């Protein structure tokens, strides 16, 4: 990836910050050619600094990622939020940047809410547990509305979300993402380059079809120098509620997340078993973590919450001024 966030460059790209940018022969046909030739690619986006200032009151920023869809990113985001929020001294916020498929309002029990503008920016919507949420879903007039936007328009909304939402003083901002490694992910990481992301949690399920996408996500994090807190393996096993025997619905044909973490030098934060009550709670907007405390999935989620917090809070504090 070239500097200044310009991507999709040809192999012999002369460099987006050079004099030849947009004018050399490898530039022909590159989608960024006009941008580079105009010199705009070299100008740093002022939003990056504005976002840093806006997020000064946010202590820790965590991204929840996966190359693969449907592995439980939004579910995990919610459990992280619920888990941290059980400590009443902590303020938690969630930013849902899955623009085409925004699930967080339903999962946090905030379906149908609308966003309000105040003098200090957009106000997030607050759940019963005091979790602040911003999502595209709050901007749609009906549940059936489709957001049929190309990359640039999605990027514009993400910039607004990061720059214009007034989170106030917040301990954790958790960002739920759509699957993949594209506009939403690039924009979020680039726009937060000054504000700094503390780390990313990567979610997978055990089968190779998921892991092959997740390895790409790890590659993405490494390319963008985004710290990886660790990997969560969701839908690990299923325990039959009747006979209590285990089944592997998504067989770990290539060793599951455990093997992948070992091969790639990553921490496995936990393995969460399938529990039908998780889906039900998500559908009904109820906190699984606090409503079904006896579930082995709940124990797994709690451990993961603790490990994520330990990772973020272990970072050294800024040095105090010399007296």
């Amino acid at each position, binding site marked *: *990836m070239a500097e200044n966030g310009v991507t999709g460059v040809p192999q012999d790209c002369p460099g987006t910050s050079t004099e030849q940018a947009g004018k050399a022969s490898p530039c022909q046909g590159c989608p960024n050619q006009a941008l580079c030739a105009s010199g705009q690619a070299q100008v740093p986006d002022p939003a990056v600094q504005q976002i840093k200032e806006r997020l000064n009151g946010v202590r820790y920023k965590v991204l929840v990622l996966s190359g693969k*869809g449907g592995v439980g990113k939004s579910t995990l985001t919610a459990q992280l939020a619920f888990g941290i929020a059980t400590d009443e001294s902590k303020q938690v916020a969630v930013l849902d940047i899955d623009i085409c*498929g925004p699930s967080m309002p339903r999962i946090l029990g905030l379906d149908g809410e609308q966003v309000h503008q105040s003098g200090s920016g957009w106000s997030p919507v607050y759940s019963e547990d005091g979790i602040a949420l911003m999502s595209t879903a709050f901007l749609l007039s009906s549940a*059936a509305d489709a957001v049929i936007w190309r*990359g640039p328009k999605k990027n514009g909304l993400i910039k607004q979300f990061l720059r214009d939402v007034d989170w106030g003083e917040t301990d954790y901002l958790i960002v739920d993402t759509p699957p993949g490694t*594209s506009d939403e992910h690039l924009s979020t990481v680039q726009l937060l380059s000054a504000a700094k992301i503390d780390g990313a949690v990567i979610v997978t399920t055990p*089968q190779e079809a998921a892991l092959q996408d997740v390895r790409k996500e790890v590659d993405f994090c490494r390319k963008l120098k985004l710290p990886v807190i660790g990997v969560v393996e969701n839908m690990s096993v299923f325990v039959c509620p009747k006979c209590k025997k285990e089944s592997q619905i998504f067989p770990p044909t290539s060793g599951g997340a455990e093997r992948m973490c070992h091969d790639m030098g990553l921490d496995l934060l936990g393995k969460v078993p399938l529990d039908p009550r998780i889906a039900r709670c998500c559908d009904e907007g109820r906190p699984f973590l606090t409503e079904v405390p006896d579930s082995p999935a709940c124990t797994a989620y709690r451990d993961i919450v603790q490990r994520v917090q330990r990772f973020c809070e272990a970072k050294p504090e800024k040095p105090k001024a010399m007296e």
Partner: protein
Amino acid sequence: MALNSDGLQKRVRCVLLVLSGKGGVGKSSVSVQLALSFLSLGKKVGLLDADLCGPSIPLMIGAHGKNVQRGPDGWLPVRAGPSASLSLMSVAFLLSNKDDAIVWRGPKKTAMIKQFLSDVQWGDLDILIVDTPPGTSDEHLAVLEGLRGHPVYSAVLVTTPQAVSVGDVRRELTFCHKTGTKVLGIVENMSGFVCPHCVECTNIFSQGGGESLAKECDIRFLGSVPLDPSLALTLDKDRDFSCAATEGPAEAALRHIAEILLKEMNEDANVAQTS
């Protein structure tokens, strides 16, 4: 000028988009199983993997690690499946290191998908299935733009029973409506799991959402497909097409759905030919 609309129009009888607003509902699994079912019904089938960030088709069809070749008139699709009768294209075939991330913004993804439709020598096909990523964005618009002018293209929507999934698929239906894409029906995947030890059926991903959505939106409900670890296993490892495998419940359900879809597409194609 619509890209190669001439070639696709003349040589590909029907195009079937496999869509879902939601990720992880089984679009790629459904795409692969529909392709195999159409092949078993004697059709010439192509399968285009339009998911550039998470291309799953090569692994699922046992073509993982293959590379694409260039012919004099364009890219030659990779041949896979039973007797190598299925024509495939995926961005995975273009990567030298299969774990490399495709970190592309919209315009480059759009360009790639249009190339897949215009520069691949698909040949004469009865059906070209297009597997898509979740959402309603660049890739989906690129596919529709690349198909502009084709007389017979339609979509099948995949969901799981959960409300969270149905919510996204409802939006995908709006996308289809706004873009004039005919929806042949809704498939509800991961619909119940029968415990192999005690035969108790558990609705792991809730219940009934797909059928309710179909009723609500007046769309045909094509059927439910149960969670089947044997199919998950088959789609996850090198597949051996040389020996006949026992058909599990998920495969049987999808074969039945394929028969319904084929009938619908044939009717549309016949109408298009006579008009």
